[in-house]
Each structure stands twice: as C-alpha cells, then as structure tokens.
C-alpha cells in the first residue's frame, strides 16, 4: 500500500514536467504562400481559429506576412505567431510563386518536404502576387472552390498533392509539374502547368491535354467550329489508357458526349470533328514533349517498363509513334432537328 501511495504522489508531482502544447496555444496553419521579391523571401501564412459564437462555432482566418533573407529565416520567424506555436499538421495548401519555381524548383520542394511532416496538402504555383491572393481568399477552401469549378468547367486545372508532385521529381521516367493559377478580376483561373525539368510553362490548352492523359480530369469541354457556328460539347466520364508496343504508343480514350447545341443529324459529324480536333491536340502535345525529351505523362515510363533499362530510353521515347483511339457515346437529350 505504501508503495502505491508513493507511486501516486510521484506521478502527481510529475504532472508539471510534461512537454506539451495545449490546443489553444497552437496557431493552426491552413495555407502557406511563398514568393521571392528581389532578395527577400516572402512567406504568407494563413491560420485558422475556432470561434465560439452564439449558437454556432465559426472559423476565423488570419494571415501573417513574414519576410526573410532566406526561406529558412522566414520559417524561423514564423515559429511563433501571436505567442502561439505554429502548427502545420493541418496544412492544406501551399502556393509557390513562379519566381521561386524559376530559381530552383527541386530545392524548394526538398525544403518543403523537410519542413512539414505530412505530404498530403495541395501544391499550386502562381504567377500572381501571393500577398494579393492571401488577402483576397480566406483559407484554402475558398481557393479550392474556385479550382474545382475551373476543373469542372474548363479542365484547365487539376490540383495535385505534394506527394504526387514530389514523387515525380524522384522518378527519372516521369517529369514533374505543378499546376499554375492566376488571380485576375477577383477570381482565380488556371494558368497552365509548370514543368520543373526545363522550367517551361504549358498554356491552358496543353495543360488540358496533360490532365486528360494523366486521368486528372473527368471531363473536358470542347468548342468546335463549323460553318461559322460554334458548338459546345462536353466530353465526360473520361477514361484514358495508354500502352506501348512495337515502338508505338496507343492511347485509348473513352467517354460520353453531351451537347445541347448538336442535333441528332449533326451528331455523327460533330463526333468526327471532335475526334479529329482532340487527336490533333494530343499529337501536338506529345510531339512537343518527345522533342524536348520530357514526359509529364506516363508514356516514357511505359517505354522504360518495356525496355527494362535506361540506356536508349530517351531515343526510343523520342522516336516512338503514336496511335490514338477515341471511343465516344452520345448521352443525354439532344435538340430536335
């Protein structure tokens, strides 16, 4: 009995010695925006805080603007925000300005990987001012709303996690890229993708094809012109498969077509037009990548898997032919003839 009492007393005395941070002493980081202006690294951190209101619990966002001569210095300054310890476990989004990506994208990604324990947050690049974006959008959910809308309507952006991007940097058969956004007229839109290998920025159209081939989008809107008339067709429920055999890439795309601009009579013609346009776009995209020996899709990896070695990988990849098959089915109601 004496031993138990002694043990209890010792335990009670130890209660003040534990190293912990209470939930109220944490600054929970929601979003980070990184930028470089001249020689200064700018870090915009958005934190979230639960707020008790009358009948509801609200969320309050707060943005902190921190500058440093290096990223490390900036993050060091950000360790304590308003006497609260910065907490990155719930980080949801990182936006990196193009100025940093142009400088040394891989090192930036390495730095981020070492800084934050988790890797399931989204990463976007931007050509617009991060300070402006952080002031206009409170929290990652606001930004994600715009991105999802853009993804559905235009297929010009598909958010990727840090994990997905970083893995690709380690993979020599696959070139990593970061989706880019642009802030314009109080709204966000897709601004293409930034290929990290050669610092190239693909435009919106190219990035759409990239997302399609990577199965990052479920639908793409296509506008077809015929006889001075525009037809808007939605190509959705997409599924893209790629294979490599006898020096030929075979890309098979299946999906449904929906349009309220196309009559039943015009369906066949529009289908053919769509296929032709899409094939052309894909071919242009792949040929451009082959020329630069870049592969932001799975194509180069297929060659590697087939060959088993990396010696003639680039040559084989560049010389491979392309075979595109598009299978479509018309769905939904069409207008009467």
């Amino acid at each position, binding site marked *: 009995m004496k031993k138990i009492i002694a043990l209890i007393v010792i335990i009670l005395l130890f209660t003040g010695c534990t190293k*912990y*941070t*209470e*939930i109220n002493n944490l600054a929970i980081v929601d979003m980070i925006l990184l930028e470089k202006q001249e020689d200064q690294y700018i870090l915009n951190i958005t934190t979230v805080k639960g707020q008790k209101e009358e009948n509801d619990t609200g969320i309050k966002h707060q943005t902190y603007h921190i500058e440093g001569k290096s990223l490390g210095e900036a993050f060091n300054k950000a360790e304590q925000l308003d006497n609260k310890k910065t907490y990155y*476990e719930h980080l949801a989004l990182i936006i990196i300005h193009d100025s940093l990506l142009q400088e040394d994208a891989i090192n930036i990604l390495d730095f981020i990987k070492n800084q934050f324990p988790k890797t399931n947050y989204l990463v976007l690049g931007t050509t617009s001012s991060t300070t402006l974006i952080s002031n206009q959008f409170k929290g990652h959910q606001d930004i994600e709303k715009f991105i999802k809308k853009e993804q559905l309507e235009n297929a010009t952006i598909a958010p990727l996690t840090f994990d997905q991007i970083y893995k690709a940097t380690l993979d020599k058969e696959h070139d990593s890229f970061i989706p880019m956004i642009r802030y314009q007229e109080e709204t966000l839109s897709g601004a293409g993708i930034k290929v990290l290998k050669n610092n190239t920025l693909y435009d919106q159209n190219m990035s759409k094809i990239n997302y399609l081939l990577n199965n990052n989008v479920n639908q793409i809107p296509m506008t077809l012109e015929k006889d001075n008339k525009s037809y808007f067709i939605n190509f959705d429920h997409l599924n893209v498969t790629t294979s490599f055999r006898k020096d030929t890439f075979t890309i098979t795309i299946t999906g449904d077509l929906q349009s309220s601009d196309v009559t039943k009579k015009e369906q066949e013609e529009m289908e053919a037009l769509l296929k032709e346009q899409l094939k052309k776009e894909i071919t242009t995209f792949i040929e451009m990548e082959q020329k630069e020996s870049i592969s932001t899709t799975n194509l180069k990896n297929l060659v590697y898997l087939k060959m088993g070695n990396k010696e003639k990988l680039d040559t084989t990849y560049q010389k491979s032919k392309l075979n595109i098959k598009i299978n479509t089915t018309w769905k939904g109601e069409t207008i009467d003839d």
Partner: protein
Amino acid sequence: MEIIEKLKEKLQMNGDFIFRDLTINGIKIYLIQNEVLCSSTYINHYILKAITTLPLTNENKEALLYDLLPDNSVIKTEKLEEMLDYYYKGFALIVYDENKALAIEAKASLDRGISNSSSESTVRGSKDSFNENFNTNVGLIRRRLRSENCIMESLFIGKESRTKVGIMYMDTIAYPSNVDKVKEKMQKVDIDGVLDSGFLKMYLEKKSNLFFPTVMATERPDRVSQALLEGKIAIVVDNSPYVLITPTFFIDYLHTPDDYYQRALNISFIRIIRFLAFLVAIFTPALYIATTTHNQGALPLDLLLNFASQRESVPFSPLVEALFMSIAFEILRESDIRKPAAMGSAVSILGGLILGEAAVSAGIISPIMIIVIAISAISGLAFSSMEMIAALRFLRFIMMFLAMFFGLFGIYCGGIFILAMLTTTSTLNLPYFAPFTPFIKSELEDALVKFKNKKIKKRNPLLTKNIVRGREK
C-alpha cells in the same frame, strides 16, 4: 444443575436472555432462549404446549422430549460450547438433565423477505433475489437445481460471529480440486466476524490481482444456478444478500443472466455494446487529453477547431479539468447512494447543475469535457459488478495520467498494460482471460458473440471434465 449455572453465568447479563424453569410431573426442566433470535410465538404455541402435555418421568424424559417434540430439528447436546452455539443460532435449549440438553430450532424470521434485486436489474427473467437469510438463499438455488448432485457443504467462520457459510457446487460437474481449493481457503479464514460475503472475498482472491475482480458477488439466484451448472462454486454467507461465485473470468462480467433468455442475435449485439462501453469507460477521457495536448494531428480540422473554441476561456489544463470532473462525478454518485431518502432528489439536481451549466458558464470547464466524462462514467455503469465499476474507475485515472505524460503513445502503453494484466491475472489458478487466452474455441461461441443456443453444447473445459451438457458424468 451445574450446566444451568454455567449458562446463566455466560448469558445472564444480556437483556434478551430468557430463562424459564418448568416442573412437569415432578420433573424439572429448564427452557433457555434468546428473545430476539427465537420466535416466542413458535415456542409458546408448539414447544411449551407439547412439553406441558408430555407424561415425563425420569426414565423416559429424554426419549419423550426427543421423539415427541413437534420440531424437525432437535439436537442432543452435552457441551457448554455447543449449547452456547445453538443458543446464538436461534435454537431454544431444553435442559433436562445434568449436562444434557436438547437444542430445538425455533428461529425468528429476521429477514426482509424475498424482494427484487437492487443492484442487478433484469429485463426478462426472475425478479427474486437473495436476502440475509441463509436458508432462504440456499432454498432459492435449490428451487432451480432440484438435483441430488447439487451439494451444499456448510462451515462456520468467525470466532465471535460464527457465521454459517455454505459452499455449493455440482458434484458431477465441478472439478473436485477447485472445490477443495475453496474449502481450504475458507478454513484458513481466521477473523473475529464475517458480517458479509465481502469479508471472504479477499481470502479467495490473490493479492497480486490489483484491479480486476476475480470473485463475483451477485444477488440473483438464476445467476448462481447458471454458474453452478458451468462448474463454478458458489459461497453463500449468512446475513449477506450477496452470494460469491468463483472462479469468474473477465468475460463473465460482460454477461448477464438475461443473455440466456433472449435471442442470440440480440444478445450478441448487446454484448458488443457492453464491450464497447468497457473501452469507452477507460479510454475516452484519456483520448481527449491526448488529442488536445500532444497529438492534435489525430483530430480532423473541424473537430480540432471546435475543441479549441470551447477551451478558449478555460484556465486549467485538460488533465486538471478531467480530474475535477471525474472526482466531482464520483462525489455526486457517492452522495446519491448515501443520502437519506428524505432528502429526495435535491442533491442530484444540485450536482447536475453544478457539474453542468454553472461550471461551463463560469469558465471552469469546457462543455466537451462534460460530455467526455459523462459518456465515460455512464459507460462504466453498464456493468452490474461494483468491483468491475471500481476497476474501470482506477484504470480511467491511470490512462488519463498516461495520456497527459505521453499522449497517444501513453494510451497505447496503458492498453498494453491492461492487456498484460488481463492475461496474467488468475482466478483460482485458472487464466482470467479465457477463452481468449488460452484460446478455447468452444467457449468463444458464447464469449462476445453468442451463437445460437442449440450450438452451445459444451461447458468450459477449464471448469469441468464433464464437458457435454445434459449428460451424466
């Protein structure tokens, strides 16, 4: 008579000592009884009435008294100690010769009758429960087990109390070695008085069993009967409404007698709920403390923000909050049990107000803490065994401290500690965590999930060699 003088010397100073000398046909006989323990009505109407009509002579008095007194329990006794023993057991003593007396059972009914169980309610099943009368308790068991194999061995424990203790078991089912172990332990009990069955528990349990109870105390005769049919041993103690059952396993505390009166599917669900209640009772406050101090990443963001907003104005750490709430709840529970009935529900209402709205409004505790402690405490009350409830309480406190020191890692360590304790605890030298460890497949059919009744045909092989039910040994 010398024996009379000796008896008077021992008993005269008591106010409830009744001494009556009778002369019948010139034969002197003495009636000695305890006014409180004996039924005066019975003695007057039956014993005295019969004695006064007997044609006693010096030669036939012993035979006549022994054969013709209308009582089924007439015992001849010649020793002073025996006479005193019978005197205090509610027997009337008829001293008819030097150092010779007859002890006639004339016990007064000092119990409260058979009533509903106060601590083990039943939804479906018998409502009767044990009371303080030994014979009544044994009778309630024998009503259910009308078999010559149901043995009741009695002994008297307690130097001053000489309490009657009955060890009951099924001769064709229980291991003789288990019965012998229990008898041995009971015979080693050397105390002044056994006022309740709880006194004997500590002699049956191992000292190393710190938390979990290994001897069950029950008020329900159906539970005892079921246990006897399993091969367990019941200990009935006079003046105690709780009968002890040993050996009991951990899984027995998740079972109720009602389990065998309902459909298997319903019972399986309820047992799983009880098991979840066991886990919730131990781990909920600890999980809350760990996730708000060390492992905030384990919570989804919305929940984390919710907790943070609720704890904003609270000046204490989560552990202090939890301890305050837990202790307040225990005080409230204790006062609820002990309070005089005349006080009514005022205490409960006051306690609820204090622990509820007032404390939150004052900023002493957060609303979420009330929910956490309430869920944990209520889950702990899902068990009928007071000892198990106490064990859960201790473990809850230990887990809270571990969570405070080490976060989720502390909880894992605590969980491993509990598992280690369960697997190393023994009950009457049998593994407490059976049928999980050791793995007994047949017993698993009635452990957590109950298979259909017709499938459960075998008894626990740890408790009996007579494994198949419904079969003679």
